[in-house]
């Protein structure tokens, strides 16, 4: 890029030889002609270093002319007598021109290096800015914003949406050309000013379409002028980097969505499988007891009648618990399910659930140990309570004839943990994590198979994890939940 030589340079181009002339005038008579020529040489070097190339050339011409006119005999004339004088003037001129071109080429290299550095920094900054975005649309918007600020040109990203393109970012009033973006995307070529295609348009547009045509970047240019080859190469590098990042994010999102729907599909399958198996067992018991009571109620001894009635109540309670689990499982298996998160206290959730579980299992010894000063967490209280209830339920069912269950809560790896320990028969052989997979029911009994699968869903929905491990005796189930940056501190 050429800049105009400032007026000051032209002034100095005249002033420095004039100063050299004045100095030589003062020295004239005390110094030989060669000595005076050295004064002019100094002037030429100074101007070559300080001034633009044109001005420096003018200064050296003026210096040679002044030396010739004022000091080379015959004085006050441009005539030159003698080979030595010719030689001296020629060397002065030759040296100054050589010096100027040397300095100019050094300067050019430095400017190039600075530009290359600035462009590399720009690419890097673009990469950093995009890395902070989640979602390909947010990334497209950030890319448009970044390039608009950095190139000082209106800039937008066009993303494919259905049949057409949607513009992301950029001033809506600007003269965007979606058709240019369409063309670039359809042909996979860069279009606009300085390109082979559509060179008359006052814009520049590069598609990104590594795997599939996804979108294009477009920026608007002034109506005249042509970007240099290097500028265009740099633009392409910027567009490629932004495009790659957006494509990568888009691909990751698609993969996540596919995974979510696969999860939902698997959950539906489990739900159906467990419905057919797990519901039938208690229903058969209820039906059997109820019909026995109705048909033979009068003939049965009171103790036997009581036993059947108590069984009815138990089976019905199990069914109702299972209905709750199925309901929540169906809800959490939806890829779009949203939790109603509130600031909750783990201590309260555990306290209320333990009170309920003691009423439900009067024969079990249930201990609660909560570390003081636990931070609040974002949770849906009902779901977390159901998780704890399922774990305690599971612990009591597998806790032997006199179940002893210990619930603990405290600060964990990256938030807080809840752990439920039983002292019973322990875990079945094999990988403990398989207990949470929804088809693992056969290892433990049906109700808790579904319950543990739901526990995992609830933990995951809260951003946490659940794991089972063997203890001596019994087993421990541990849930780790993240604690968010608090908005309200104690």
């Amino acid at each position: 890029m050429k800049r105009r030589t400032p007026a000051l340079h032209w002034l100095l181009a005249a002033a420095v030889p004039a100063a050299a002339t004045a100095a030589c005038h003062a020295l004239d008579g005390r110094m030989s002609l060669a000595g005076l020529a050295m004064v002019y040489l100094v002037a030429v070097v100074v101007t070559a270093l300080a001034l633009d190339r044109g001005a420096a050339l003018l200064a050296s011409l003026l210096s040679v002319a002044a030396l010739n006119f004022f000091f080379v005999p015959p004085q006050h004339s441009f005539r030159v007598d003698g080979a030595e004088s010719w030689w001296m003037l020629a060397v002065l001129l030759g040296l100054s021109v050589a010096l100027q071109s040397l300095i100019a080429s050094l300067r050019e290299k430095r400017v190039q290096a600075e530009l290359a550095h600035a462009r590399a920094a720009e690419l890097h900054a673009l990469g950093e800015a995009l890395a902070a975005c989640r979602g390909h649309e947010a990334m497209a918007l950030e890319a448009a914003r970044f390039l608009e600020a950095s190139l000082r040109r209106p800039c937008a990203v066009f993303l494919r949406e259905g049949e057409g393109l949607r513009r992301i970012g950029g001033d809506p009033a600007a003269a965007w050309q979606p058709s240019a973006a369409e063309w670039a995307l359809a042909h996979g070529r860069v279009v606009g000013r300085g390109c082979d295609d559509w060179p008359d348009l006052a814009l520049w547009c590069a598609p990104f379409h590594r795997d599939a045509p996804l979108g294009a970047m477009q920026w608007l240019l002034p109506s005249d002028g042509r970007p240099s080859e290097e500028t265009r190469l740099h633009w392409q590098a910027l567009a490629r980097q932004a495009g790659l990042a957006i494509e990568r994010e888009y691909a990751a999102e698609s993969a996540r969505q596919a995974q979510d729907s696969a999860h939902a599909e698997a959950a539906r399958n489990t739900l159906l499988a467990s419905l057919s198996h797990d519901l039938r067992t208690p229903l058969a018991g209820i039906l059997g007891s109820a019909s026995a009571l109705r048909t033979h109620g009068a003939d049965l001894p009171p103790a036997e009648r009581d036993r059947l009635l108590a069984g009815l109540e138990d089976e019905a309670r199990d069914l109702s618990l299972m209905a709750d689990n199925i309901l929540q499982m169906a809800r959490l298996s939806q890829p779009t399910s949203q939790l109603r998160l509130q600031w909750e206290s783990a201590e309260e959730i555990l306290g209320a659930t333990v009170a309920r579980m003691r009423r439900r299992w009067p024969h079990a010894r249930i201990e609660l140990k909560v570390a003081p000063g636990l931070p609040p967490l974002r949770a849906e209280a009902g779901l977390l309570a159901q998780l704890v209830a399922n774990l305690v339920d599971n612990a009591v069912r597998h806790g032997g004839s006199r179940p002893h269950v210990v619930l603990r809560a405290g600060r964990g790896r990256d938030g807080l943990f809840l752990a439920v320990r039983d002292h019973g028969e322990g875990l079945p052989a094999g990988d403990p994590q398989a207990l949470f997979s929804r088809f693992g029911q056969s290892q433990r009994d049906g109700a808790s198979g579904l319950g543990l699968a739901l526990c995992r869903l609830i933990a995951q929905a809260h951003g946490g994890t659940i794991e089972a491990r063997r203890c001596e005796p019994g087993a421990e189930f541990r849930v780790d939940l993240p604690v968010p940056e608090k908005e309200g501190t104690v």
Partner: protein
Amino acid sequence: MTRPDILVVEDEGPIAQFVGASLSAAGMSPRVVGTVRDARREWRDAQLLVVDLGLPDEDGLTLIREVRALAPTPILVLSARAQEAQKIEALDAGADDYLTKPFGVGELLARVRAMLRRAGASPLPAPRLQIGELDFDRESRELQVGGRPVHLTPLEFKLFERLSRTPGKVVTHRQLLADVWGNDQVDQLHYLRIYMGHLRAKIEADPAEPRWLLTELGVGYRLADE
């Protein structure tokens, strides 16, 4: 002693039958209706209403608002799991307590008895409240637990005082926040949790397993009344 009249508004046959039978067996005289329309005709004679939220003709909430606008008759709400959010709405609209289906006879009768007992008491909060080892003097602002005086900060006092006005009755998070912190703070649930934590630390023997200040998960709190 007379048999208290209880109006059960429930359209699901088996539940209506079971609630009716349990109340009769416990010495009360229940009447069962299946619609809001019928309930509007009948509720004035009742001493207590048991209202299901999912009714065929109109929303149970509508009935609760209408009754509450006219009379202080205690209302017990029955809700299914799918109506959890409505349950809180019903409490805020003036219902006194709730039961989530399925529930047992024991729970039902305990709630009904507690509500009838409270309804018989004076509508003004008693100046002095004694529940178990809690001894609260509203006038002198003194609270003792098992004879030991407990010092409360002004906000803790306001919170405890609000719960003590209706012992045994669940008070929703929203009501507590509005009455203690003000109407513009009803979404600041974490204030409530923090102060409830402080209050429990001062009053309860084991704050993790409260005996007096009970949690109703996702709904609110209640002060135990026995």
